[in-house]
């Protein structure tokens, strides 16, 4: 087991009082496995994964447990909830990487792509500048960005949305993380680009045996990419099972509603 989440609870202190975001979430992922978390916006799915990374806002309170298996056999696993910043920094980017919904704003507009890719390799892999540059260009090529060696010197605004998401993927997978968290990776993109992005992720994942935690509101995407799915609604986990079970024998009323809402050609 790579990641074991038990009884994850998240709430926020706000002006208006305490807001519960996630009530009691438990799930696990094996190495190389792909799991989808499905739910509408506000269901707490994004909050959950941000909590795993320690990236929630300062007014968030997280309790429960999220254990990441050790990199080498025999060592104790790492507790992510409440972990020290130093511990989290070594996990982020290196063992768990993340790509976000909006590729237009997720990259720093003030820095060249090369800078943003190289810093990751240098931080976690201890590479020198030249070595990191070479690795970064290879990664760019792996996500099928044409003329990677030249375009790595570009700034983000010189790329289209789809290309930027490819850059994000290249960056996220450059340190060969054990888990990739993709938070609505295709939602902000054109329909024609969405499949290409998902293909790129699947292809690279296969190569590096990276597990995937895919967060989406789109059941169709989950069906194509994942072996298991979690359905969340208003901070609760309402359904959990294999894709086959979730699609063909859903237990929760909500899941049936979601399935019924998928447009079908035959109508």
């Amino acid at each position, binding site marked *: 087991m790579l990641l074991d989440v038990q009884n994850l609870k998240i709430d926020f202190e706000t002006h208006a009082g305490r807001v519960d975001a996630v009530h009691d979430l438990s799930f696990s992922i094996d190495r190389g496995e792909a799991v989808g978390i499905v739910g509408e916006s506000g269901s707490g799915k994004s909050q959950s994964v941000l909590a795993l*990374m320690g*990236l929630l806002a300062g007014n968030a309170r997280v309790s429960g447990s999220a254990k990441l298996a050790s990199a080498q056999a025999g060592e104790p696993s790492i507790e992510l909830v409440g972990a020290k*910043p130093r511990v*989290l*920094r*070594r*996990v*982020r*980017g*290196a063992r768990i*990487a*993340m790509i*976000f919904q*909006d590729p237009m*704003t*997720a*990259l*720093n*507009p*003030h*820095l060249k792509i090369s*800078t943003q890719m190289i*810093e*990751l390799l240098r*931080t*976690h892999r201890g590479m020198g500048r030249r070595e990191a540059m070479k690795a970064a260009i290879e990664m760019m090529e792996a996500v099928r960005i044409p003329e990677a060696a030249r375009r790595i010197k570009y*700034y983000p*605004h010189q790329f289209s949305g789809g290309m930027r998401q490819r850059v*994000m993927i290249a*960056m996220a997978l450059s340190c060969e993380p054990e888990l990739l968290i993709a938070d609505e990776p295709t939602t902000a993109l054109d329909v024609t680009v969405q499949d290409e992005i998902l293909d790129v992720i699947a292809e690279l994942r296969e190569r590096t045996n990276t597990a995937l935690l895919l967060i989406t509101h789109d059941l169709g995407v989950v069906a194509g990419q994942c072996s298991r799915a979690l359905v969340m609604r208003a901070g609760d986990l309402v359904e959990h099972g294999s894709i086959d079970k979730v699609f063909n024998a859903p237990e929760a009323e909500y899941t049936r509603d979601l399935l019924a809402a998928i447009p079908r050609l035959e109508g």
Partner: protein
Amino acid sequence: MLAYTIKRLLGAIPTLFILLTLSFILVHAAPGSPFSMAREMPPEVKANLEAKYHLDEPIYEQYGRYLLNIAHFDFGPSYQYKDTTVNDLIAEGFPVSLTIGGFALLLALVLGVPLGMLAAVRQNRITDYLCSAIALGGISMPSFVIAPLLILWAAVYNDWLPAGGVDSWQSYILPVITLAAMFTAYILRIMRASTIEVLRSNFVRTARAKGLSTARVYGVHILPAAILPVVSYLGPAAAAILTGSVVIEEIFGMPGIGRFFVNGALNRDYTLVLGITLFYGLIVIAFNLVVDLIYGWLDPRVTY
């Protein structure tokens, strides 16, 4: 980049033109101006003036001549200081003014930028409130209040620093601190606001998700974005620093341009006041231009 520079240069021309025309009209419309000869003045100055400004010529020729003189940076003779041109006075005073203004701006940046970032990071905590209160104080305490109080404390009651003059480098300490106070406050506030905004942006979350060190997140990812508003503030700041240095030089008795300017204004030394106004105007326009270029260079999204 070159095209952008040229575009910016061309953009400065209307400003320059309005500045020159406005001052020309002011000089000619003013009652009791040297040109209406309502005021007693030494004959040699009068003769000099008439020769200089060719007052018998039609107004458009005078205007052309006036533009021509300024194009040569020739601001004419001073009334008040005999046998001295305005150019001489500017040349004499500018190094002093530049020293005070330059160091004040530097000090304001060195203090304001980190403190503003600190306040933003510690938003709504003691450090933030403290920084914000200090900043409000800096904005609310005019330099002509801070300066005398500093002199009283550091020079009159305690004999730590000279109260004025330009005899040694210590003489510059109090003026620079005084002048920097307000700009530190403004830069702090701007930096705080922009850092708070940048902290909320997605790319900072990405940088954190990459497991970068805190120093790298702040230094490489946040700072370049957050500092842009401070950079565009530097244009107005330059104008304000020039204005501020007038008071500073007056209080600390430093022979800078500002002091000449006030003396000229009080003694109705028309050419001197006009000359310095134009000189400052040129500096401000030039500085704004430089700031724009720096901004364009810092922000890759600016299209040239």
